[in-house]
């Protein structure tokens, strides 16, 4: 059980990494328009 001393901070750190990725994506406008890209894939070029 002593492994928890290391595992809990590692788990939180991993989670924080993904939270940071979300913040980065959201602040770059990734979630501003959730409708258009879905429709756009049907356009044939």
């Amino acid at each position, binding site marked *: 059980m002593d492994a928890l001393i290391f595992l809990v901070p590692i788990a939180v750190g991993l989670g924080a990494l993904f939270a940071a990725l*979300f913040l980065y994506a959201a602040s770059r406008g990734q979630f501003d328009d959730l409708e258009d890209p879905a429709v756009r894939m049907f356009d044939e070029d």
Partner: protein
Amino acid sequence: MTAPAGGAGPIAVGCAHCGAAIERSAAQQALYCCGGCEMAAAIIQGSGLGAYYESRESPAPRPQADSTAWDAVAIEHSDDRCAVTLAIDGLTCSACVWVTERVLLATPGVQAATVSHATGRARIDWDPSRIALPAIARRISMLGYRPRPLSGEAKPDRGLLLRLGVAGFCSMNIMLLSASLYAGWFDGIDPRFVGLFQWTSLALATPIALWCAEPLYVGAWAGLRHRVLHMDLPVSIGVIAMYAQGVYATIAGRDTWLDSLSMLVTLLIAGRLWEQRGRRSAVEAATALASTAPRVARRAGVDVAASALIVGDILDVGLGEEIAADGIIVRLSGARARVRMSLLTGEAEPVEVRVGDAVVAGSLVEDGAIVVRVEATGGDTLLARMAAELARAADRPTPPSLTDRIAPWFTGLTLILAALALAIGGPERAMAVLVVACPCALALAGPLSTAAGLGASARRGLLVRSGEALRSLATITTVAFDKTGTITHGEPAVTAITAGTGTTESAVLRIAAGLERASGHPIARAIRAEAARRGVAMPEALDLVEQPGSGISGVIDGVRWTLRAGAAGQVELCCDADPAHTSQNKGGRIGLRDVIRDDAARTVAALKAAGYRVVLVSGDHPEVVQRIAAEAGITEVLAGATPEAKAAWVRAQGGGVLFVGDGVNDGPALAAATVGVAMGTGVASTVTVADAVVARDGLGPVAAGLRAARAAKRAIRGNASRSLIYNALAVTAAVAGWVNPLIAAVLMPLSSAMVAWGAARVEKWTR
């Protein structure tokens, strides 16, 4: 008469671009109803985009002349490229979006173009040395879609989304650690792990308390500065108390409330984000309806932006054109001229004007052509001054919400009880009271129910601009409608056709539609619409001559015909083969009148059944108003009212009045009413200041919006009483010392789920 001389009979086909029914003789290859459609198709086929015609879901709109002054539009400049964001009207399917984007990209000089399917907006980058914005806009309008400049584009606010992301991440981890700690109460746990879990929880709760909860603190502080106890205040007190206790208890090695704190903040931020999204989509849609296009004027034969005009300029205003500035008529081009001033007076009937008469900006020349000397421009025009007054008047105070009215009592009571608990059971118990009293469910009740109400109303076509407006909408007892453009369409429609000797009604309509096939005049549109309704195909007219003031003439089936204004509300069709040149022989008369909307009577009946008093308020003659009122089923009428009289009438009702109008003449009444609703097809300045906008062609959304507002009010009431009962029970238990962090952690989400369930029923109650 319908059969052309010689050869096979005409074949009725649809215009290949806009789908209007037209006639094609066996020998002819005419596939388009007018030059505009032919040009649009040439652009699309020429760019290799013919696939558009196979994949589109509905025919394209017919191209119309674009009168926007694109030179006056603000453009973003960078080194060697320009960029602009435009709204494009008329995009109905993904094929429309696709073809517009491709045509733009195929335009030389355009470097990048994206058209959004969701918002109908285009982002265009171009090289200013190779092409200019007016030319780009012309490319779009030549396809039949209508580009329009946007004003005051707001960047989407991502603050709440970022806060929700962080709060969600932190609270889920805290929840996991807390579950372990609670399990440890029952099964025993190594004290080393208790310390680890508690310190980790504190570290995770810190960003929530210090950053994610910031909007709550800001709201509470703003309320305090204005000496109002806002619902954010007890919530903020609870959050700060929980966090302070958390820091102290973690150091001292005791139980914390950090799991409740994180859950509470996450739920509140989520509720706010939802409300903001609902409100923003309504406001964006309403703003999109308000066209802010600067207009063009013709000065000495050259088109200039209306903003460039100065007092004393001489303008030519032709048939079907809008007057760009206030002025005096100095000359008539024909024998007579008629001007429609519905924008100002609300009357759809055009008025006969003479030399020396004053005309105002925004009026439409319906008949003839005039020359105007400019007297006032831009912000000095009567139209602009009325709009400015309207904007000032619309900035009215709103009643406080139910939860805000409860907040002061709630805060005071909580503090008294906390002091009581402090006296009975010491600081630990006082803390428990502050934590449990934190009105999470009550604070969520407002935003969730408001968002549900705004959404339910918007889905039915009434875009309500704010939660405050939705609240006012629930207090309405009287619904007043303007006549022209609100109860009626505001545009003429064909009501009667009288055929002369030797011809039939549909033959008269066929010839008239053929003559008006390419015209953009309101009467021409009405005749074409009637032809489409009766399934009469439009023949091709040759040698068309449009004479300002005296009508249009052309050759159809080898005979020359003239369509001209007759008695009031009528146009006459005359055959030139008839020496007397009257409509009696082979010609006919077409009666045109402004008719009531299809769903007007149904909506009025629904409103009356729901217990509302319905009134028709108009500036028109009493007989006309009475007739329209009878058609719509309205018994109470106020006729012959000036804009000021309408506003005075609204004020005299003493509140609870909903006014629905479309023109600037309704402005004062819209501003005086408890809730002002503008028709989306109305004047831009009215649409921008109204509390709500009807986004569909009809009145049904007004009744639906009222239902949604009542449903939201009912949901807020139910939610508030349920969460008050919950809080009363929980606080009593806390004062008695029966509440521990585990019980609070279970009760908190239960009460919030209860509130979310209450809000979800708004949609059902609106039906």
